[in-house]
Each structure stands twice: as structure tokens, then as C-alpha cells.
């Protein structure tokens, strides 16, 4: 078998599908005449087929989880970041809630430590710091709403608007009178509700004043 070595190259180009059309014709013509090269060509094709069985080789079951088990611990910050990325709406909700609640809680917390405060629309009310008590004396008229924080309120006079007591309670003396609603706020939830109502009222006020 003293054939031109180029035919072997052509045969490999054939199995690799890189053979030129002209080479293809040349090879086929030669192989027809030469039994030795024909045998070799068959062998090359067979070897190629045997090698081309990569699809049959698969990683064993559970391979991925075994690799993952061997990895060093992931930083928790990365986990959180990935969670936020995959849940954008929930993230927005969480951010909103965190900001909202921190604002509300800080105000609520301040209420509990701060001294008594009164909004009485300019009416002359007495503040008893020792007992944390606000007294609307008999004969005094509050022309509007009365809001007391961090203390009780005793009403012997008159309130033309509503009475709101935050973090305290109110007592209405027999002679006292409240024209509007009266409300006591003790819990955070109530406080939140109060803030929302206040917000809505302010907005309502804005719209009506326009």
C-alpha cells in the first residue's frame, strides 16, 4: 500500500466534515480502485463513530448537589441580595414597611418617654406635671379639638371639638362636656390608625380649602 498520504488526510477531513468537494470526488475515485485504502477508510469511519459517543457519558446522579455541598458557606448578604433581586415587589413592600414602622415606632416611643403635651387651641388648661394630668377647669371652654399626649385629662369645663388622649385616659367630670368624639389611644396599632386618620383628614382639609 504505497498510496499518497493525502488520501488519509482526506478520509479524516471526510469524517470531520471539513473535506472540500473536489477532494471528496478524488477520494471516492481512489477508494473505488484501491482495496487497502477502502479498508482504511472504513476503519477510520468506524473509529470516528466509536469516539463520537460523548452523549452516552453523563455525570452520575446527584453530581450537582455533591459539588454544592463541598462549596464554602455563602455569605448571608449574598443570599439576601439574591432574594431581593428575585422578589422585587416584596422588596418594595418590605422597604416601605420598614420605613413606615420605624417612623411610627420612633414617634410612639418618644410619646412614652416625653413629658405631657397638650394641644388645646389656646384655651387655658392646667397641667399637673406630677400626676401627668391635664385639667380643663370648670368654666373654661376649648374652642376646637383637645389633644393630650402622655397623660390623663380631666374635663370639668367644655370642649367644643373632639378629645383625643394618647397614652392616657380621660375623665369627664359631671359638669364637663365634650361636643365632639372622645378617644383614648393606648396601643401602637391604635396609634397607627390614628396617624392614618389624621393623614386622611389633613388631606381632606387640603382639598376642601382649595
Amino acid at each position, binding site marked *: 500500500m504505497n498510496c499518497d498520504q493525502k488520501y488519509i488526510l482526506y478520509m479524516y477531513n471526510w469524517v470531520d466534515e471539513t473535506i472540500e468537494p473536489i477532494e471528496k470526488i478524488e477520494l471516492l475515485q481512489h477508494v473505488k480502485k484501491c482495496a487497502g485504502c477502502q479498508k482504511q477508510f472504513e476503519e477510520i469511519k468506524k473509529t470516528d463513530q466509536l469516539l463520537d459517543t460523548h452523549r452516552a457519558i453523563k*455525570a452520575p446522579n446527584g*453530581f450537582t448537589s*455533591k459539588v454544592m455541598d463541598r462549596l464554602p458557606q455563602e455569605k448571608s448578604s449574598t443570599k439576601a441580595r439574591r432574594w431581593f433581586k428575585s422578589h422585587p415587589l416584596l422588596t418594595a413592600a418590605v422597604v416601605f414597611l420598614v420605613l413606615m414602622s420605624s417612623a411610627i415606632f420612633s414617634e410612639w416611643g418618644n410619646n412614652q418617654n416625653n413629658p405631657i403635651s397638650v394641644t388645646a387651641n389656646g384655651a387655658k388648661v392646667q397641667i399637673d406635671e406630677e400626676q401627668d394630668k391635664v385639667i380643663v377647669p370648670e368654666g373654661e371652654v376649648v374652642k376646637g379639638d383637645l389633644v393630650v399626649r402622655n397623660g390623663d385629662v380631666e374635663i370639668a369645663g367644655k370642649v367644643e371639638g373632639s378629645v383625643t388622649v394618647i397614652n392616657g385616659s380621660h375623665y369627664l367630670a359631671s359638669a364637663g362636656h365634650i361636643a365632639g368624639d372622645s378617644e383614648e389611644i393606648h396601643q401602637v396599632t391604635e396609634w397607627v390608625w390614628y396617624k392614618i386618620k389624621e393623614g386622611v383628614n389633613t388631606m381632606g382639609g387640603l382639598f376642601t380649602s382649595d
Partner: protein
Amino acid sequence: MDITIKRLVRLVKKGDQKAFEELVDIYKDKVYHICYRMLGNSHEAEDMAQEAFLRAYMHIERFNEEHKFSTWLYRIATNLTIDRLRKKKPDYYLDAEVAGSDGLTLYSQVAVAEQLPEEKIETFELQDRIQVEILQLPPKYRSAITLKYLEELSLKEISNILQIPVSTVKTRIHRGREALRKRLNDLDC
């Protein structure tokens, strides 16, 4: 495909293990294939393939995103298996060839409880046969042939993985295939 891989690699660089898990899933068969062809033993191959992924994870910072991730990953796998072959002490495994037995493995000496279907035996034998012959090749031919048949890798890509010139890749593939052809057909006679 390439965009997905790039995105995943970027996430892994930030420490995202979930993204790495996806990469493992995409490449596990290919990496295992390299290790199996190079080592010829499924236990060792699994071990080395896992090791390759671990190294890729640990050194992901060193991966240059301008290159193909698969090239880098396959290079890690081939280098690991070549190192392993160099250090290899004689081990005895069921699927290792029994010396002087013309491709017989210890499997053939263990009673098979369940009879395999005819077809299965045939493909199993062919697979085994080609694997045995590949293991007879020197590792440098083995790696070139393995990568050549791994997937549609160009000669350029193979040369990048093995870090040898394209002309050398060509020679090794050619010599490797010729050696395989001769061995496969000698045994037939």
C-alpha cells in the same frame, strides 16, 4: 447561551452560589466526560470532576470574562486529570483493566445478577472497548482526542484549552486517531 453564561459567571463572582449551581448543571456532563476519558474510572472521574468545579468556584476571580468560560473550565479539568495521572499510584478498581487480559476488566470477573438486554451489552461493550483503547494512548493524545469529540470544539478552542499551538493539536488528534484505528482493528483480527 453565551449571554446566560456570562451573566451567571458575573453572579458567581459576587458570591452567588445559586448561579454556580446552574453552571454546574450546564457543564457537569462535559467536565465528567473529560475526566472519565482521561482517567478511565468512574469513581476517580467523579472525584476529579467535582474537584474541577470546586477549583473553578474558588478561583472564579481569576477568570477573564473576555474569554469563554467553557475553555477555562475544561482547562482546569484537563490539567487536574493530567496531574492526577502523573501522581497516580497503582489503584485497583473494578473497571480498571486486568493486566495482560486484552481489555478485560474486573467487572467481567464479578457475577452479574441481572441479565442486561442484548442491545445494552453491545453499547456497553463498545463504550468499554473504545475507553480501554483511549487509555492506551499517552495522556497528551488522550486529551486532544477527548476534547475533539467532547462537543463542537474548534481546533482553536482545543489549542486554547491545552495551551499548545493549533498545529500541535492537529498532529496529536491525527496521531491519536491513527493509533486508535490500528488498535481497534488489530483486535478484530
